[in-house]
């Protein structure tokens, strides 16, 4: 494998940070090739959680006493880390959510319900994860707007020459698009779509669930209006995600969830809202989870997003090469240059579920199914695929073990 960058990470050393890899599965070391679903956690993140609960736990924004101040400071420091991570211009633009899905729904409800109506167009794509598809479909249904999708090619790339036609004959109000496809690894030219949206007075929402953990995301460079991602896919804990929103838009919007912590003044007659970002964080937030997400950001930044992307690129190259040698194996997705560390495939005559089950017996974990991408599966003409996805702790020998497992599956079903 050619070294593509001069920054290079040492996956074997990194791996030692992850307690999960100490165990054996079926007597074999864990070849975890399912990080696109959720990533494992380094001990630094687990320790941050434990330390917070043991020494600084408290609710935020409420208490006067020192412990509450400490908890609050830790929470706001995590917000600052998240801000820096995506280069938002202010922490007021960084809202903690549960996950990407909630962030996208927040925009669909709080922006969509008040800003969409009959004659408006909501544009997503065939690549979208259900979490960036169904919320737009639903808000279009509720408001009478029209939901349209940008088609993809057989290789899973957006058919951008369709854009003009799709945006025509109505008022384009919003484009919701993923930065990286979770099924095929397609790296989407989101800048172009964001510019297209802005030229037409529409806003652009970016699903960065598969981008933020793996490559540098800069919301100011992208010039997007909203961008969502999940902590659990980037070595952080479950239960926390981030929604970036441009302050100007967040300010004008109605709140989404209402209740404690997001109000300015409440009375039967009239209730007013707290300042950003608190207006969008009703109730007790995932305090410890946000703090531990901060630790995950430190961890990733310590290694470098560029090094992580380069490492995954090498693994994707190697996987495409090795899998391409297997007879009866179909690979999906774009060419390597426009692909992140995700490889989807099918073995002739064997359902992905069965493939995954047989691989599991070899200690190899892959995802089998529609990957929350049914419209894309439909387009590819399959019900499901098997998918291997890589992260900073993935090793080339895990690709070798994948190949061995696939050969075994072929034997079982021969």
């Amino acid at each position, binding site marked *: 494998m050619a070294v593509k960058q001069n920054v290079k990470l040492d996956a074997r050393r990194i791996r030692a940070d992850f307690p999960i890899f100490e165990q054996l599965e079926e007597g074999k070391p864990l070849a975890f090739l399912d990080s696109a679903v959720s990533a494992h956690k380094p001990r630094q993140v687990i320790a941050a959680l434990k330390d917070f609960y043991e020494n600084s736990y408290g609710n935020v924004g409420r208490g006067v006493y020192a412990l509450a101040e400490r908890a609050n400071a830790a929470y706001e420091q995590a917000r600052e880390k998240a801000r820096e991570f995506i280069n938002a211009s202010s922490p007021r633009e960084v809202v903690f959510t549960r996950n990407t899905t909630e962030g996208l729904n927040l925009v669909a409800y709080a922006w969509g319900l008040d800003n969409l109506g009959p004659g408006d167009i909501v544009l997503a794509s065939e690549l979208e994860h259900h979490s960036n598809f169904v919320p737009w479909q639903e808000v279009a249904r509720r408001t009478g707007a029209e939901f349209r999708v940008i088609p993809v090619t057989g290789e899973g790339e957006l058919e951008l020459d369709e854009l003009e036609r799709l945006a025509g004959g109505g008022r384009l109000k919003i484009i919701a698009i993923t930065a990286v496809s979770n099924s095929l690894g397609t790296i989407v030219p989101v800048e172009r779509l964001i510019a297209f949206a802005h030229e037409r007075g529409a806003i652009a929402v970016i699903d960065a669930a598969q981008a933020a953990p793996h490559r540098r995301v800069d919301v100011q460079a992208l010039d997007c209006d909203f961008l969502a991602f999940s902590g659990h896919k980037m070595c952080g804990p479950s239960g926390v995600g981030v929604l970036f929103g441009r302050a100007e838009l967040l300010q004008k919007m109605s709140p989404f969830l209402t209740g404690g912590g997001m109000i300015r003044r409440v009375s039967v007659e009239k209730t007013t809202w707290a300042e950003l970002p608190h207006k969008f964080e009703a109730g007790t937030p995932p305090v410890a989870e946000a703090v531990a997400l901060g630790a995950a950001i430190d961890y990733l930044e310590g290694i470098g997003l560029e090094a992580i992307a380069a490492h995954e690129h090498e693994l994707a190259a190697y996987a495409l090469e090795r899998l391409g040698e297997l007879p009866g194996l179909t690979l999906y997705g774009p060419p390597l240059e426009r692909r992140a560390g995700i490889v989807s495939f099918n073995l002739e005559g*064997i*359902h*992905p*579920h*069965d493939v995954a*089950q*047989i691989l599991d*017996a070899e200690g190899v974990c892959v995802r*089998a*199914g*529609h990957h929350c991408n*049914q419209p894309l*599966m439909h387009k590819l003409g399959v*019900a*499901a695929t098997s998918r291997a996805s890589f992260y900073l702790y993935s090793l080339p020998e895990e690709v070798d073990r994948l190949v061995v497992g696939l050969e075994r599956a072929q034997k*079982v*079903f021969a």
Partner: protein
Amino acid sequence: MSSIDNLYRELILDHYKSPRHHGRLDPADAEAEGQNPLCGDELLVTLRFGADGETIEEIAFEGHGCAISQAAASMLSEEVVGRKAAEVAAIDKDDTPLVAMMIESGTPLTPIRLKCALLGLGVIKVALHKSAGTPLPEEWTGIDEVEFE
């Protein structure tokens, strides 16, 4: 024998590769369709009753899915022919042929694979519910009215 060889044993692979009662009856007395939302597996079942209006005389499946879901449906279809709707609606999951076989072998299906293996049973029960008013399994409650036209 490894657990994989146990699961993908001859009998299951045979039902997968050559499913019994495969196809679609037209006309049919009962029909239902179901999905496993986890993996997108889908089954359509059609069936006909005998003269008594409650004994299953013919049944046919079509759809797509993993070896477990397809073999389980195929094996079950052999079981239900000749039995009454109420009887079939009362079949416990552990008594379906594939599931029972795995329990007996000492390596029962894991919860997620169990969902695959029970898709066929669920869809049959929905079909019977719609045509004969028999009860639905709890996990399918509400699904038929909402999802199936």
